[in-house]
């Protein structure tokens, strides 16, 4: 082997080794540890729905959204909701609630959903200062109607801009990013609270894509319909190891024109979708978007050149973040 061959092979080896999840050995797969996974052989995705999630004035009813959260969690774990929350989190946890507020009011994670989740965490005994409602920037949060807060009296609410990003570069596959200090330094656990919507480049935004808000350079990872970038971002240790539950806001999703809010393309789904397997959740969400597109005479995402293939990639042997095989899923409607 000459010098050139040696360097080429060592480069290939280095690139390959960078694709090996560094802490994967702690788990049987990329999924959270068995202690916080729902029991059963299949990846369970719960679609909890209530027609009274909104009142006659088209405003969300906090109490009913909270009931949706409880129903989603109980059906996911097949256990009393209070027990589930205690199983998932300890009093010492600092829990980040990763919302998606890019599109402003109308197409951001609803405050009622966040309030319900915060309330359940407080009931576990977590102090308000250890609950952090968090997204990319203060401005995004404010635009979506969230009140910024840093203190002890209520859950925290602020953007990445307050604390910046790690100085260390975290890498997996094609991704090399600095990670939000809120996630890296402050949170011991994360509840992923995405919103379900169409995305003009990567197809859909739901569970996996929401963590683009946890890195410094998401603008670099939208091309090729976000594949493999969305999957690679979710392999970063802070995201993979700290995310314990995903509750997707599918109350008023949008099937076209995203990511900005285009009310003409929203529909009343009145659902909260729960899963621990984010890949399975995204597969279900993808189908919901496709169904709406078909019912409204729009071409499929594939025909539109933005099939969210990153969902398949997230399920492949390199990533093992979950399953996209509906045969291996249990979809529960509650």
């Amino acid at each position: 082997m000459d010098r050139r061959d040696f360097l080429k092979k060592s480069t290939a080896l280095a690139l390959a080794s960078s694709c090996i999840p560094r802490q994967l050995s702690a788990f049987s797969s990329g999924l959270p540890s068995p202690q916080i996974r729902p029991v059963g052989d299949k990846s369970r995705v719960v679609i909890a729905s209530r027609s009274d999630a909104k009142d006659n004035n088209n405003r969300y009813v906090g109490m009913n959204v909270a009931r949706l959260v409880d129903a989603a969690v109980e059906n996911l774990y097949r256990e009393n909701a209070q027990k589930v929350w205690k199983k998932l989190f300890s009093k010492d946890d600092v829990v980040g609630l990763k919302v998606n507020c890019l599109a402003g009011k109308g197409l951001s994670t609803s405050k009622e959903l966040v309030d319900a989740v915060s309330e359940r965490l407080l009931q576990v005994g977590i102090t308000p200062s250890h609950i952090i409602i968090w997204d990319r920037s203060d401005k995004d949060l404010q635009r979506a109607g969230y009140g910024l807060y840093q203190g002890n009296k209520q859950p925290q609410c602020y953007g990445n801009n307050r604390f910046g990003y790690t100085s260390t570069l975290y890498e997996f596959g094609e991704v090399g990013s600095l990670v939000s200090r809120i996630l890296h330094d402050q949170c011991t656990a994360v509840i992923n609270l995405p919103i379900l919507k169409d995305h003009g480049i990567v197809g859909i935004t739901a569970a996996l894509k929401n963590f683009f808000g946890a890195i410094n350079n998401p603008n670099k990872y939208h091309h090729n319909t976000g594949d493999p970038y969305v999957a690679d971002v979710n392999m970063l240790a802070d995201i993979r190891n700290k995310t314990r539950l995903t509750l997707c806001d599918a109350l008023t999703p949008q099937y076209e024109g995203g990511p900005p809010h285009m009310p003409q393309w929203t529909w009343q789904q009145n659902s909260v979708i729960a899963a621990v397997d984010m890949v399975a959740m995204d597969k279900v969400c993808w189908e919901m978007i496709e169904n709406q597109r078909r019912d409204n005479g729009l071409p499929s995402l594939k025909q539109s050149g933005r099939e969210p293939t990153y969902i398949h990639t997230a399920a492949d042997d390199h990533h093992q973040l979950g399953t996209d095989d509906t045969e291996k899923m249990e979809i529960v409607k509650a």
Partner: protein
Amino acid sequence: MFSRREFIKSTCGAGCLLLSPVPSKIFQGAGLAQAAEIQRPVEARYYEKQPNRKIKCVLCPRECVIDDLERGYCGVRENRGGTYYTLVYGNPCAVHVDPIEKKPLFHFLPGTNAFSLATAGCNVLCKFCQNWEISQARPEEVKAYQLPPRDIADLAKQNGCVSIAYTYTEPVIFTEYVYDTSAAAGEKGIKSVMISNGYIKAEPMRDLCQVLHAVKIDLKAYTERFYRELVNGELKPVLETLVLLKSLGMWTEIVYLVIPSQNDDKNELQDLCKWIVAELGPDTPIHFSRFHPQYRLKNLPPTPISVLQTAKKIALDAGIHFPYIGNVPGDPGENTYCPSCGTLLIRRIGFTIVENKLSKNLCSKCRTKIPGIWL
């Protein structure tokens, strides 16, 4: 001539500068107020409006189609309600005084200083970027200064600079700032140079050429594979930019960072050199620069100097008159020789001109005209 002491001083200085991946020293000049946050976004110049508040950026060949409230690949241009804005206009994050040889531009006012500046952002993603902390950052991640175009020429003069260099990151993504600054500086007798990857569409490049005096293009390889896998860009548009610059009469030099096993194949270098001679002419200088492990390409060793010497020989054999070796302070490959009689005309050590025997723009021995922009 240099004394022994001066020689050692200049060599050490050059070595330190070369080893420093980020610009050497942050400029602390008067009048530079640090910006608390992004100042006054300015409407971008190269974009098309599309339905549903989308826009299509036509600044670089990537042609990002961007939804409302989203940013382009560069991270510094944002769609706000269907109008596209640059977020870095007048907000450089790096401002320094550098020798022009650091750019490197060897045939442009040698021995002078360039007032050098950069904003955050870049339109490619090189795995070997030496300034990735600012090039791959969004504007809000870096500390920036408020420095409007009209003030820069005066600052340059106050600091003994005869030119302004847009450098460190990628000037294409702050093209409006480059244009306005260069136009204002030109009126005050200060020249402007752009240190670029050349990944830009023809119209904005043509516009910039109206106010620029020299361009250095980082030609990162001569294969699309390299551009695809290590740059996240394309080779073809960069070659087109080089041809455009030549056709517009812009003084252009090329830097080719030689990365072991990635773009140092002899056949590739031969093809590249033949292309340069055919399309740009033999008087286009090319700098074969030494790679040092950086950013996401830390697994490769620094380029062996012998490989750089081979690249230089290939260029000479192909007919290129001014091939240089870069990032190797003290190597004779840094010097300029007369292509006709072989006389040593400009001797350099790192960024320092040790000796300049040019007689205006002529070889002092055989009177051959040496191409470039000289003092």
